[in-house]
């Protein structure tokens, strides 16, 4: 508001105002329009008359009730497993002298950016009951080719396991970051007062970290609940649906968009409720550390146990990283995906097929890159402007803008997909069939994380420099681009890269919104899974991972960047 007071006469001519209004309009188009159509469709029937039948069907028809129950079981179990595994790991990495802590963090990042659907396919290769490589190894070791499988990935526990593999990083990052910030003095005080290691842990460290663990549990729950790819790949062979696969199946001919809309509502409501809960919990955490003065945390000396700890951490990371990547590499070069590569079955056929025969490859890569580039660029621009406006409280409606920019976090990808499909397949905005609709989806999905990251960055840049430039006659936009933007370069580049990586792995909205000409790599891989072309999937998946890691490595080269951004898929 002080800015407006310093240059009241200029405000009318300042070209930034129309732009600000335009950004508010963009946000409304991104979020309010699809959600309104979703709500409207959920309470109408085929003829457009108002009805509650869709919801009645949702709560009475077992083909809807069962997936809902399955989804709740799945999400709860995944959240618990993620906490049990990730919280101790986060503590080991943040607060102990365990060796290779940086490597462990890097490997967690690797599981973080691995597309969950790719992980699910890799786990099919590893733990399908009969052809799975691990089960074959096991049978070989015990010398009984007819033995019952050790693992069966095509089960609810199998699905929970695979989802946990790619969800635990959320808990890990939250816990590790929280422990990084909890001052060591509190623990020192405890030990000076005679508290032994476990007493200190029980009475000081754990209570301080608990809010982060709980928040992590909620995020893990949300991830597991809204994931589409992994259940579509593993649950269908096992003979059950989750809510996301059920919503997807409602688009089978003849499509039932009104039921899909109604089935999306429970996911939406649950997400909103859980995010409120997360907000309350995280609010308490910041209160909990108010008393402490920032000092470097004291590392717990594990002694000989540090090697045990490292072994356990590596054992955990086998599951999301080493084993699946190994299985994909094996499948890419093996004539039969279920056989270990050897001299007799080594082949380059899969690579040849993907690059020279598969006519969808080029288009899918082109679309993915265009979308990744545009989503990252546009998403970053929107996030920068909105973070600026809210951090500086530059316009009257900044609170509404902040809310709108954060709101998509409450919309699961597949729900957003359904909403956008309903909004943009009919006049006045027919965008279905173009890359625009996917662009809107990807920008919307990326916006909350991008906004949160940049908003935090803006708070570190003093407002004085901007005001100085404005007093010297610069418009608000000039001040932004000449003063603030250069100072924020690191955060901006990081945000760009994270959106780009997020787009590459997005499937749940894309699966509803793609057409044959707007196919992306994730959808291509999903289609190849339908026809069982595992070799081609392995090749495409490895290319995807290589691109992703190239981008992640590029981010890590940026000095001073360490935090994680929330991904959704």
């Amino acid at each position, binding site marked *: 508001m002080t800015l407006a007071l310093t240059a009241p006469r200029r405000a009318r001519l300042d070209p930034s105002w129309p732009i600000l209004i335009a950004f508010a309009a963009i946000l409304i188009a991104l979020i309010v329009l699809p959600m309104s159509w979703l709500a409207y469709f959920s309470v109408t029937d085929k003829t457009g008359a108002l009805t509650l039948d869709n919801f009645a069907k949702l709560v009475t028809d077992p*083909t809807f009730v069962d997936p809902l129950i399955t989804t709740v079981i799945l999400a709860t179990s995944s959240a618990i497993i993620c906490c049990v595994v990730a919280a101790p790991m986060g503590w080991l990495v943040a607060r102990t002298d365990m060796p290779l802590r940086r490597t462990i963090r890097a490997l967690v990042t690797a599981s973080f950016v691995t597309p969950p659907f790719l992980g699910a396919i890799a786990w099919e290769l590893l733990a*399908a*009951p*009969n*052809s799975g490589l691990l089960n074959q190894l096991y049978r070989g070791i015990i010398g009984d080719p007819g033995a019952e499988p050790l693992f069966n990935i*095509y089960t609810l526990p199998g699905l929970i396991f695979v989802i946990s593999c790619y969800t635990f990083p959320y808990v890990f990052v939250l816990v590790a970051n929280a422990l990084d910030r909890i001052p060591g003095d509190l623990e020192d005080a405890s030990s000076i007062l005679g508290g032994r290691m476990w007493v200190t842990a029980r009475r000081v460290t754990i209570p301080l970290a608990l809010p982060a663990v709980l928040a992590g549990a909620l995020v893990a729950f949300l991830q597991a609940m809204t994931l589409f790819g992994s259940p579509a790949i593993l*649950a*269908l*062979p*096992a*003979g*059950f*649906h989750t809510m996301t696969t059920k919503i997807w*199946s409602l*688009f*089978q*001919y*003849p*499509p039932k968009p009104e039921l899909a809309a109604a089935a999306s509502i429970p996911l939406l409501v649950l997400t909103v409720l859980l995010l409120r809960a997360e907000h309350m919990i995280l609010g308490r955490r910041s209160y909990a550390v108010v008393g402490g003065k920032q000092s470097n945390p004291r590392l717990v000396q594990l002694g000989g146990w540090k090697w045990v700890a490292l072994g356990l951490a590596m054992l955990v990371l086998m599951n999301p990283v080493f084993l699946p990547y190994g299985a994909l590499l094996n499948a890419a070069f093996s004539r*039969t*995906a*279920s056989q270990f590569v050897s001299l007799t079955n080594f082949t380059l056929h899969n690579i040849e*097929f993907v690059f020279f*025969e*598969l*006519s*969808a490859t080029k*288009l899918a890569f082109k679309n993915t890159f265009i979308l990744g580039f545009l989503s990252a660029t546009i998403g970053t621009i929107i996030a920068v402007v909105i973070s600026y406006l809210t951090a500086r409280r530059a316009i009257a409606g900044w609170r509404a803008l902040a809310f709108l920019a954060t709101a998509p976090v409450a919309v699961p990808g597949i729900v957003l997909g359904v909403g956008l499909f309903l909004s943009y*397949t009919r006049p006045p905005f*027919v965008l*279905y*069939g173009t890359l625009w609709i996917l662009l809107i989806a990807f920008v919307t999905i990326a916006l909350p994380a991008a906004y949160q990251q940049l908003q935090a960055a803006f708070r570190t840049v003093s407002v004085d420099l901007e005001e100085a430039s404005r007093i010297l006659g610069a418009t608000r936009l000039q001040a932004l681009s000449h003063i603030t933007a250069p100072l924020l370069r690191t955060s901006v580049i990081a945000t760009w890269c994270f959106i780009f990586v997020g787009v590459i792995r997005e499937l749940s909205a894309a699966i509803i919104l793609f*057409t*044959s*000409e707007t196919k992306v790599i994730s959808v291509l891989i999903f*289609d*190849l899974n*339908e*026809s*069982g*072309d*595992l070799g*081609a999937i392995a090749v495409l998946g490895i290319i995807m991972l290589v691109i992703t890691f190239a981008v992640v490595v590029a981010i890590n080269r940026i000095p001073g960047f360490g935090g994680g951004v929330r991904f959704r898929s």
Partner: protein
Amino acid sequence: MRVKVSRRALLRSTTALAASTAFATRAAAAPPAEPVTQALIAAAQKEGKLAFYTAMDLPVAEKFAKAFEAKYAGIAVRVERSGAERVFQRIGQEMASNIHAVDVVNTADGAHVIVWKRNGWLAPYVPEDVARHFPAQYHDPDGMSALTRVWLSSLGYNTNLVKPEDAPTSFADLLDPKWMGKMVKAHPAYSGTIMTATFQIARELGWGYLEKLAKQKVMQVQSSTDPPKKLALGERAVMADGNDYNLIQLKERGQPVEVVYPSEGTPFVTGPTAVFKSAPNPNAARLFQSWLHAREGQQLLVDFARQHSLHDQVTGKPGAAKLSDIKLMKDDAAGVEAQAEEIKARYAKLFGV
């Protein structure tokens, strides 16, 4: 040997098709057969590309695409492959949104061309070879589609996991408790082959059979091209349905799989091809339709894709099973069209997905 024998068997086994389906419902005046002219080739090359939507196995479809591209330089074929029911859904969604992306479509569910024709989406086009070399009852009287390929939804087994003497020989055998948890099958809501097969099996053996089969803990995959691959991987021992042609291809490549044509009769699947009226590349679409039904495309269908052709000049592959030697179930595309919704709903209830 000539395929004439098979064609006769075909005629015998599919009288229902001739009597009741999209084809031959009335003796309308079909549009005149059109030869491939230099003008058509030039116009197609000017368009330079075409979108071929299909349900056939991806490597098979890409093989056709590459062979066509080799013959007519400068026309890039983009294959859009998924299960026929998903192709059907995709085209429906795209057309409803006024998106005209599809040029030519080859499905695995004969019912689809009935719906597309009724919707007025198809362009009349009779390639010369279809008029001269295909039996009249296998192309639409109004020239809206032609029956490109015929194959079967067979049973099969992995020869490493099952001895030939223990292998199932009938649908009834699959209900033996010894196959509990050892079978794989595809899904009628994704695959046209399986939609067709489920219709015929339910008609011949009753839904009671499928009810019992559902209790056998069958691994459920989507496309009918997947069960043969799951057998080759060794993931399951027995295939309860799926494409016979994928099994034949895998066997020829030395994979440990074997085809079984069940004693009750094998579901008979038809895959017609149609040119869309709204095709963005209408000339390339017609040229492809002509090439696909000419001797070259049809011979590739038999030799590489291991399916059956209706073209009277195409020669069968030596040693290959002849349709005349296999007991076949009767095709009824109109019946499938009428019951598709019910089949999907009943199936979902039985198998849980």
